[in-house]
């Protein structure tokens, strides 16, 4: 098991390397050099002229003026070796600090919707399969299809409107007030967060839940009619024990490997829902940084959310190996 985990960890390195190149190329795509543009903007808007020394410093730090491969090496080198994500010209702050402020909440919301998806999808999927063609099955299948078909930004928008018109509360943001958001972490702050965070979690999780219910239902249905289930039943195993011990274990495999792709999906959903609901997470900041050619902030966020999803793939693989010895010992 340990060697398996180690091998998967080593395998992540080249993948992360390729992703970092992709991200770097993506943020460099807009025409023109972002730093030159920034210098120009500063001069035009604030009359601030960069001294020779500033430019030299920028060359040393970001490889300003160097060819792209050198810039890339400096960029990724700073991140990996020093945790230095560069400077956000738009926010006038260290990009690393902006990201560090955003990431905990982003991860919390993504994980929250992840747990929501799992807690909801697993029992409903099992129920839909065991009681196939029952009213509950039809109702959940129907709701699942609706969840799959409604764009989550639209769902967010509709919930915001419902919140304001019917419940007279605002679902925007994650905290009751800006003071609480600025305040240091305390039990009261966590409680306030929980009170607000469930709405985006449900919104983000809905589509994924619908997909997972369908996966679970289809896989369990395949297993339920196999002879070994009949045998176990004939031997007098109770229905519940039978279900949990045999067919469910089989059906869990695609379910677990399915969630390797669930987190990228949730993070992507999070980005757009956060923009609509104005959450203090990476979504709105990413959009703004991309729109304003704030390359280091945008690149850092893109890199980190890709990293997050890679970790989730790793976790799902480990879970899969733990569940299924064939994967652990096979090639």
């Amino acid at each position, binding site marked *: 098991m340990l060697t398996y985990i180690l091998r998967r960890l080593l395998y992540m390195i080249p993948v992360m390397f390729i992703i970092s190149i992709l991200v770097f190329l993506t943020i460099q795509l807009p025409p023109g050099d972002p730093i030159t543009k920034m210098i120009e903007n500063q001069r035009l808007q604030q009359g601030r002229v960069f001294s020779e020394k500033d430019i030299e410093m920028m060359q040393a730090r970001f490889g300003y003026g160097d060819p792209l491969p050198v810039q890339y090496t400096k960029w990724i080198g700073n991140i990996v070796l020093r945790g230095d994500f560069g400077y956000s010209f738009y926010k006038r702050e260290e990009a690393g600090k902006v990201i560090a402020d955003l990431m905990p909440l982003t991860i919390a919301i993504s994980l929250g919707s992840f747990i929501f998806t799992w807690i909801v999808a697993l029992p409903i999927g099992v129920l839909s399969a065991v009681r196939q063609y029952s009213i509950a099955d039809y109702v959940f299948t129907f709701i699942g*299809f609706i969840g799959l078909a409604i764009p989550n930004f639209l769902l967010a*928008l509709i919930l915001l*409107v419902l919140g304001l018109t019917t419940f007279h509360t605002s679902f925007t943001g994650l905290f009751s007030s800006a003071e609480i958001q600025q305040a240091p972490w305390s039990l009261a702050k966590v409680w306030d967060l929980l009170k607000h965070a469930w709405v985006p979690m449900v919104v983000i999780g809905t589509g994924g839940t619908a997909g997972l219910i369908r996966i679970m239902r289809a896989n369990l249905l395949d297993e339920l009619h196999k002879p070994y289930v009949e045998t176990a039943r004939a031997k007098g195993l109770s229905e519940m024990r039978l279900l949990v011990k045999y067919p469910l274990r089989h059906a869990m495999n695609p379910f677990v490997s399915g969630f390797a792709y669930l987190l990228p999906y949730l993070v992507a959903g999070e*980005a757009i829902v956060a923009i609509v609901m104005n959450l203090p997470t990476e979504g709105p900041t990413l959009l703004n940084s991309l729109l304003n050619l704030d390359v280091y902030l945008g690149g850092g966020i893109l890199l980190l959310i890709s990293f997050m999803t890679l970790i989730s793939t790793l976790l799902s693989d480990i879970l899969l190996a733990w569940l299924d010895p064939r994967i652990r010992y096979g090639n």
Partner: protein
Amino acid sequence: MTTEAKNEAQDISEEGGVDLAAEIPVMGEAAERFAMAPQWQLMWWKFRRHRLALVSLVVIIILYTVAIFAGFFAPKSADPTELQTPSYTPPGYAHQTEYINAPPMPIHWIDNGTFAPYVYAFKKTRDPKTLVETFVATDTKIRLGFFVPGDRYTVGFSSVPVCPPEWSENAICKLIDPVLGFVKTLAFTADIHLFGPINPEDPFYPAGADDVGRDVFSRLIYASQVSLSVGLVGVFLSLLLGIFLGGLSGLVGGWVDNLIQRTIEVLRAIPDIPLWMALAIAMPPRLDPVYVYFGVTIILSLLRWTDLARVVRGKFLSLREDDFVTAAELDGVPRGRIIMRHMVPSFMSHIIAQMTLSIPGMILGESALSFLGVGLRPPVVSWGVMLNKAIDVVVVINKPWLLLPGLAIFVTILAFNFLGDGLRDAADPYHV
């Protein structure tokens, strides 16, 4: 085998168990018909059993028909100001400013006991205390009718000539020229609309107006042209990439397979919307709308070909070992012919099902990007571009009809999902 014969067989089997002796030969006949039926027939029978998929197919056909003949189905044009030329002022253009943000007009179908649809014209009033603008219905009835004249519109590809000048010697062109000489391009222009005000100058807002007084309902119909075609074009591009790379992966194997599989894993690890956002923003801002459209479509397919590639690869891998492929190989059939004539047709139905299931993702992606304002931009009108006006909650509360494009997206995606499910079941007709 005809459909009636199948129905007959079904009818008899449904009565089943009443008279066994009479049933068996017929059943045998039905079974034989079943065995003799070509594959597409089997697929159709299987597909037909999936009621929701059948309904969805009809819905999708209707949606695309409306999109192709948008000008005919839309009572007004998407943007009357754009149609205006020195020689042509679109009718109804004048009242546009009076109806800014007007709510939907309820249509009354019966007038004095006879069928005579009409709507009441609106008048803008201002609340003296709160100064809020509201629209109140006046007594003026605007008569509506079917097949009424209105804004001029074009259906088809007005930029594609039927017989370009350099083809004037072409035999077919010579043949059709005397008969259809007036048809210059693959398009026709007309001004008859399915439904609308009898007097084209009258305002008609069945689904309300937007912030510059354009008819939301007509825009919804025009927007479907872009929103529905993004899915098709995007899936087509993904299909090309997916079949090529997936096929290469499955057929060649070895390090090529390894490389392509790792690429797919990398692409699937990146959350799509953030990357789409980055790529869409990287497009030059003052690009021609046509290029923006194709740019967005290419961006969407860049991440979405992986699903198709995986299906294609899996199929190639499993088929490579199949008996009929071995038989063809032993017969000395060239490799290219084996692939094109034996392998590809045997999994084409799976590909079509997978494609149908990929379309919703494309439509969702486009609308998400346009909704955020980084995808398609006005003057292009798509459902996402329309929803962009509803990005603010306060706007939605005051003008809920701006969310209608969301309903259109919802219906389309639901229909494609059901259709894809039905096709996937039907793609394997021998699987019970």
